[in-house]
């Protein structure tokens, strides 16, 4: 609330939710912004749902609550939708259409949700929606999250300035992948035509 910004990162085990969180925390440290995070990843490597909370500001420790998240970062649309109730009217949702089908969908027992409907609803009801509908063609899957980070960095309610994010990438990412990561991050910042409108027929 006053003076705090809360971010929820949702994804699938193996997608790098924890790494994404670590990056944000590292960047906040460089920017001298009080930061806390809280993660649940017991079975993360086995492809289950993973969420993490990152909070900026005093008197908050990474804990989230329903209708209490300012920015939802969905690295996978179904997992983003699973966290829908955490959004409030003033929230921003950044959702990457990087679909990973859970077993029940693959087995034909359940349907993958209608993401378009969800995005349309969000557009009507929250402050802002950034939907990354493209398959990001040439971008390596490993650095796809950095592209999402680029999008996040351009969000006006996001408190960490660009240079600290760059510094965090340089510090945390494995030395061999820094260049590719920075490139993806910058592509995310530049590449605005992917934001609106939502592409039909994806």
């Amino acid at each position, binding site marked *: *609330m*006053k003076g*705090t910004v809360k971010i929820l990162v949702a994804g*699938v085990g193996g997608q790098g939710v924890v790494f994404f969180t*670590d990056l944000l*925390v*590292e960047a906040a*440290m460089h920017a001298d912004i*009080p*930061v*806390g*995070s*809280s*993660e*649940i*990843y*017991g*079975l993360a*490597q*086995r*492809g*289950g749902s993973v969420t993490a909370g990152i909070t900026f500001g*005093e*008197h*908050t*420790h*990474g*804990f*989230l*609550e*329903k*209708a*209490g998240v300012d920015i939802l970062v969905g690295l996978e649309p*179904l*997992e983003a*939708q*699973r*966290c*829908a*109730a955490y*959004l*409030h*009217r*003033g929230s921003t949702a950044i959702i990457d259409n990087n679909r990973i*089908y*859970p*077993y*029940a*969908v*693959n*087995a*034909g*027992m*359940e349907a*993958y*949700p209608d993401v378009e409907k*969800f995005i349309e*609803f969000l557009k009507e*009801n929250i402050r802002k929606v950034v939907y990354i509908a493209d398959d990001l063609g040439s971008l390596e*899957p490993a650095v796809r999250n950095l592209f999402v980070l680029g999008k996040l960095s351009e969000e006006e309610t996001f408190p960490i300035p660009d240079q600290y994010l760059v510094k965090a990438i340089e510090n945390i990412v494995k030395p061999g992948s820094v260049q590719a990561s920075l490139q993806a991050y910058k592509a995310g910042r530049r590449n605005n035509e992917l934001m609106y409108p939502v592409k039909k027929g994806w």
Partner: protein
Amino acid sequence: MKNKVVEILTSYSTPRQVSAIGNEAIARGALEAGVSGVFSYPGTPSTEISEVFNMVCNFQSNFENEDDYPQLIKNRVYFEYSINEKVALEKAIAYSIGNKSAMCVMKNVGMNVASDALMSVTYQTIVAPLVIVVCDDPGCHSSSNEQDSRYWGNMASAPVFNPATPGDAYRMTKEAFRLSEALRLPVLVRTTTRVSHSRGMVAYNEIRPAIRQPFFERMPEHINIPARTAAAHKKLLEKLGSDTVTPFFAEFNRTYFPGNKEYGIISSGVATSYLLEVVHRNELSEKVEILDLGLIYPSPENDILSFLNKGFKKILVLEELNPIIENATRKIAQVHRVETEILGKNFGGIGSTGEFSLEIIDTVIGAFFGQKTVKYKEVEGLESFSQNLPPRPPALCSGCPHRASYYALKLLIPRENGEVILCGDIGCSGLGALPPLKMIDTINHMGMSISMAQGLAEAMKEKGGKVIAMLGDGTFFHSGVASLLNAVYTKSNLLVIIFDNRTIGMTGHQDHPGATHLDKYNQIEILPLLKGMGIKNAEAIMPFDMKDTYHKIEKALATEGVSVLVSKAPCVFLPEYKEFARQDAKITVDHSRCNTCQNHLDHEIYCSRRGSSQSNLSRAIAKIKADKPVDARDLACPANICNHGFFHSILEKDYKTALDMVRDKMLFARACGDICHRPCELFSGHSPESIVPVKQLKKYVSGIEANFRDFTNAKERIRHSAPKGKSVAVVGAGPAGLSAAYDLVREGYQVEVFEKEAAAGGLIKYVIPDFRMDKTGFDFEVGQLEELGVVFHFKKALGKGIRLEQLRKDFDSVILSLGMGKVKPLPAVADNLPANRWSDGLAFLKKYNNKSLPIAGGSRILVIGGGNSAMDAARAAKHHHASNEVFVSCIESLETMPAFEEEVKHARDEGIVIMPSSYAHQCLENGSVTVVLHGYISRSLLKTLEVDYIVVAIDQVGETGDYAEVGAENLSEKGRIIADEHNGLSNLSNVFVAGDICAGNHMSLIGAIASGKRAAVGVRQQLEGYNFPYEGLNALLGLNGKRKEQHASLPFNANGSLTEFLSKFNLFQSCEKCNHCIDNLGCPAMIKADGKIVIDQAKCTKCGLCIDVCPNDAISWAENGKMESVF
């Protein structure tokens, strides 16, 4: 990684602000306190603490770092992942007794394993400080219970710290070493998932390692004997009540917002963090004073009492899980007669289960203060989007060897009857309980699987059935091994499968006695250990060798006593896996074989195969078990029966479905079982050993009388067909016409059949001798047509009561299945012999069947002709009287006779003399009949034969009246009606032809049936715009073209086990309703898109399991080559 180690090992003379998760903070606290030995067992949420020390240990033992970081390796920390928590704590205690400070780390349930050591050491003594870190898991994010481990402090009389934040965790761990040293007691630091996995700011300070020399001092306390215990207990409690603890209470039990407040809240652990956030954002600090308890055992009675005496209006106690502090507070209030209202569990929705959250604390604070709390504006209708979404449970990784073992088990163990009980265990192997594997019936705690299995085996003894214990290698070493010893010693009857992937997978690949990926320890092989235990039936399996795994498990299941299989292949995360799997190759899916039906197009909506996974399993089992793979398309039936579905229904002992699959395509299941010449077998090109005996199976399933009498499904099909409002006349009620009628009536056509005889059945009914087939069964099958709604008109033939022209007007379509009921006369016989000395074959057989043959016993009979009718006639002559002598003369050689080899063989076996390559040159009647036979090729005298009777069974032709109606211009030279080979359409626009009279048709029952079906498809194409060709067409046309291989299938003994006989065959074919891999394997790299399987190459780990799994043989390596094991 290195940066992190350097950071955590560096001593900071000025505090350094670091962001750390609770677990890292604990590790740093211990390092600053000078810990010199860490003993642990991995387990979420505690693992990261141990991982720090594992990294530290590796860093310090890497000699390269000696020069670069001399300061950081100076104070070496010993670290080990012990075999289990009990050993870890015991060794930590001993380490302390050797005068080295120690820490022991575990998760909540690990404390239960270690508790034996804890419960008595407090009565005795430690020497150097010993801190035990135990991480609870409220909400059970990754644990088998949400026990409150704070109780252990009370139970064992050991102090307990309960941090609220990573910062607390750091400070408390550090100070716990000091308190432990002061009291000479182990001290517990108890965290929860939310603290361990939260990241916050922590100030790292100086590392001041205590300089301790290794030293063992003999002390009476080191010997625990009952005589000393009572006194020791008293002394222990005195220690806890001593002033030594007081400064620690002062340091870790803090008050927030002190002052003259209305409300008081006592809270502990992560509850304090939630509480402070809610208090701050609601600006309640003016109203409330908070007592945060960090050192919760010994019970901070003085702190609580002075808080109770502050004159609050009411007091709220907030703690996750059990009301430990609340009960202590209520006790103190009662003893000291404090009247203030105390609220705790059951107030404002807080309970003793699950994890607290901001929402819960927000609600309870609202209730406690009686005011609305500040909140963001919710979005109405948003919550519904997050409901009823597909779940995403964790799953075994792509390439996980556990999946291979579970899959083999799945094929072997029918889950419906529950006769085999599957006891699973903790760890990755426990994921086998989830869909689609679902191969676990019980999971309890670490290592219980083997005890559970032996206990159940004992309990189930009278009932029988096998019990299987399944556990990972880590779990086996942790505690399963002791249980296995018990099983051996008590002569239990169970199968143990150890999933040996050489690591502890679930928590992130830590060491254990079987781990190979680090060379710092001795590696213990499980198999020799088992042999050493005296287990004779112990074998290793390589789970990706599916056939071998299957057979070994099958064998072990049949073995009495203790048998153990070590399923050994590396975890996909281990470097060994890369060598193990075929990294160079790619797996591809042939979509033409994946979920594609080869057999459905003529009746596309009807497939008798059930959609159950059971039928998928029988196909998959056949793939693994059988040694003769036969593509069902090789066994193509002209009537387009799905031999593959038929076969697999029989494998499942579902004989009714098998029969219905035949009847889905044709009426004459039993007749075909009797007399079909089985082109599907003969023309397959397979050797006798690999021919699936389709005809014998057909006879078997149609021989089950109750099923045979049940035509419900055929009738059901009519109910589901839309009436077409079209009528079809079928002329000729032989098998061809009746087959067309059967297909059309089930598709909703009105069908009327015209027949010249007084009953339906044609040549089959009148001519085939009754010793070859069950005539009653045939009549029953034919009789069903009337039940299905076909209208019959008997004693009508073209030109006799009906006219083709009229039929073409009265009906939308006409099918002519007139048959060829006349035998061509042979002048040498007809011109020279009186009528009582000879007969044509068809008339002869008719008379045989109605028992009016005018031949006395002991007669000599010559049959002229080399076809099947000749063989029938010859055999009928023999069957008529066993004393008859029967000869057959034909112009063909034995090899080229048109009769089926089997028929010839039957005839010869019955004593009939066959004279091939001969013809009757002359016949004379002189009391008897003298026949002069000439060689067909030599054209010279072969033999003169004296006989009593001659049967002429040569070429058959149609009735003259029929030909007249059809018109000569529509006939071929051989007296057949010209028709399109694709649909049986004649030159007349709405007239179709089927059966023997149809040009190019083959004279056989199945050929007649198939051409009837073809004509039905033709009618449908014409009348309802049906788009598909007749799918049995290739097989039908092949009847004439292909050379007969004449391989007989091996006979099976119907009294023996049919399933066992068939288990050597895998009759496979791609099936549209397959879905086997998705239903039973669930590899995360397999995606089903647009009905076909796609391999997600990014996720595929190239294990190749799916190749062995696919019953359709649709999956393969893109390149040739074989996977080899590195073991």
